[in-house]
């Protein structure tokens, strides 16, 4: 499944398509959306009896990691959750969105809106690949949405770590690769530590689906994605600050994803309250 999604995204959403998408804000590639549907991206967890793939959260997490790595645009989580509930969602024929943490992504482009988006106000989105509307109030986050978002963050963290390491290996200053300097090495090492720790948390949460595991995964994955993008930017020096280099897209998307499950403080409060409950 993961290899299939990775292969599809490499073929259909490579560096050129990413650049094109950035230059056409608010436009979603419907052909790619249908191909994602055909590959089972949205119908992944739908039972085979309902025309789905019949897999579970662990496989969905792997697919969303790949989407996060590739910076794949679109209301992926909302459409995935709508599979089997909204006609055409599972097949990638319908683009479905809905409120997530007081925001709605891709409202203008969606065919179907699930949930209450009354009073939605458009924002000038920080991320050129994610049109946003703000809502007057935020509802309680769906646990699966929180987990799949964490999986996207994890994929992004893995990608920014790779980008930083690639650059550190090849970029030379003072007559040697900058990755030979410990100060740069240690930035990269910490990126890997955060990514590996978050990966264990996300993959375990995909198995247990328990609230404490999911919110722990969310906190760790948010941190790995946001700090990973920032450190990747730093390792790239001046190039990291350009529009052309993709790291700013990882950072901006990671910022948006940190809002989907509501403020991080709510997950921290949930984790704190769990300390007073019976041990699981």
């Amino acid at each position, binding site marked *: 499944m993961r290899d299939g999604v990775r292969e599809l995204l490499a073929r259909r959403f490579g560096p050129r398509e990413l650049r094109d998408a950035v230059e056409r804000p608010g436009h979603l590639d419907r052909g790619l959306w249908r191909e994602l549907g055909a590959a089972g991206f949205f119908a992944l967890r739908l039972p085979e009896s309902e025309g789905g793939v019949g897999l579970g959260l*662990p496989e969905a997490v792997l697919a969303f990691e790949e989407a996060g790595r590739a910076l794949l645009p679109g209301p992926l989580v909302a459409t995935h959750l709508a599979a089997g509930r909204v006609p055409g969602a599972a097949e990638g024929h319908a683009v479905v969105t809905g409120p997530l943490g007081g925001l709605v992504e891709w409202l203008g482009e969606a065919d179907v809106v699930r949930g209450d988006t009354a009073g939605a106000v458009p924002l000038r989105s920080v991320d050129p690949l994610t049109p946003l509307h703000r809502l007057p109030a935020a509802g309680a986050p769906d646990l699966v949405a929180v987990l799949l978002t964490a999986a996207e963050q994890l994929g992004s963290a893995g990608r920014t770590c790779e980008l930083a*390491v690639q650059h*550190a*290996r090849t970029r030379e200053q003072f007559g*040697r*690769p900058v*990755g*030979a*300097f*410990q100060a*740069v*090495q*240690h930035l*990269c*090492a*910490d990126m*890997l*530590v*955060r990514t*590996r*720790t*978050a*990966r*264990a*948390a996300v*993959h*375990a949460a*995909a*198995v*247990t689906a328990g609230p*404490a*595991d999911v*919110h*722990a*995964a969310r*906190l*760790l994955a948010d941190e790995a994605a946001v700090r990973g993008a920032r450190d990747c930017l730093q390792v790239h020096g001046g190039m990291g600050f350009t529009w052309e280099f993709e790291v700013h897209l990882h950072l901006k998307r990671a910022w948006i994803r940190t809002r989907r499950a509501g403020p991080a*403080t709510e*997950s*921290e*409060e*949930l*984790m*704190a*309250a*769990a*300390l*007073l409950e019976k*041990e699981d």
Partner: protein
Amino acid sequence: MDLTHTPEEVEFRARLRAWLAGVLPALPPPPPPEDWPGRRAYDLGWQRRLYDAGYGDVHWGASPTVRLIFLEETERAGAPYVGACFVGLLHAGPTIAAEGTETQRERWLPPILRGEEVWCQGFSEPDAGSDLAALRTRAHRDGDHYVVNGSKIWTSHAEVADWCELLVRTDPGAPRHRGISWLAMRMDAPGVTVRPLRTLAGSTEFAEVFLDDVRVPVAHRVGAENDGWRVTMVTLSFERGTAFAGEVVACRRVLRELAAEARRTGRWDDPALRRALGGLHAEFRALWRLTQWNVGEAERGGGVPGVTGSVLKLAYSHARQRLYDTAAEVLGAQALDLDRPWVLDRLSSLSYTIAAGTSQIQRNIVAERILGLPKGR
């Protein structure tokens, strides 16, 4: 990620849990930290109980998963720590098991498993800490003996150890990783002087060991002469695998105790403190999952945990320090009272980012051996 257990593993956990529930209530309290002979007897006695019950060799004989279950269950039940048996069970023993001759295994392994002999570790030196290969303690051949001169430092349990796993330089002319040998030295041999070192927590947890013309039989060398570096690496990779599993479980228990204490004192009403505790809960939950992940990898890879242990050590050692700093926030002014719980733990947590390779060296290892960055400077 596979979190399921085989029927054998489930059965092992149930049997161990029942045994612990039967044994622990009758166990006397551990002796005070300054009572070294008492601690030695207590730790060896516990190992003997484990041995008699069939758990004596769980650290080497069992699969990584069974070992993890053992560490989890003993910690949850509040069983004694491995203590003075640490080096024997987790360093010297596994090294001898992997690299020793039949005679050496028969001589040294059973007394470790039966809780009869204590080992200590003579690796670090005043001028060879993180840079272990810089060690200078010399051993030259004199017939069927080595004559050893030099000094070792940070040697835990040196005062009560019977044996020391000792790294010595046997070929000063060779490149520094190639002239080292691994010897088993008796701690009561003439010429061995132990000088306890006091830690910033006030206790004497380790010592300096001075070696003046100490004679060690050549038959006590494990592995080939000058091959001690490779022999040692077998041991160190063992250390960084599941070494912290029990401690991560313990930290999760401390977190729950901290939450209960904060509720009792009213500190819980401070949202910043609550969120700090919640964040630590997320982190330690993730560290437990990472431990399980590493064990799964070890299970698939055939046993010896690799450098991924460095990732866990880095994350865990810093998380532990934050845990006890947050404990101080729960305690308020009482965090300055050595008689309060967690205060000594806060002090000892400061060693975690230093011992067994500093965080800086661990980051070098991650950068060079996992990420493949060029050798640093």
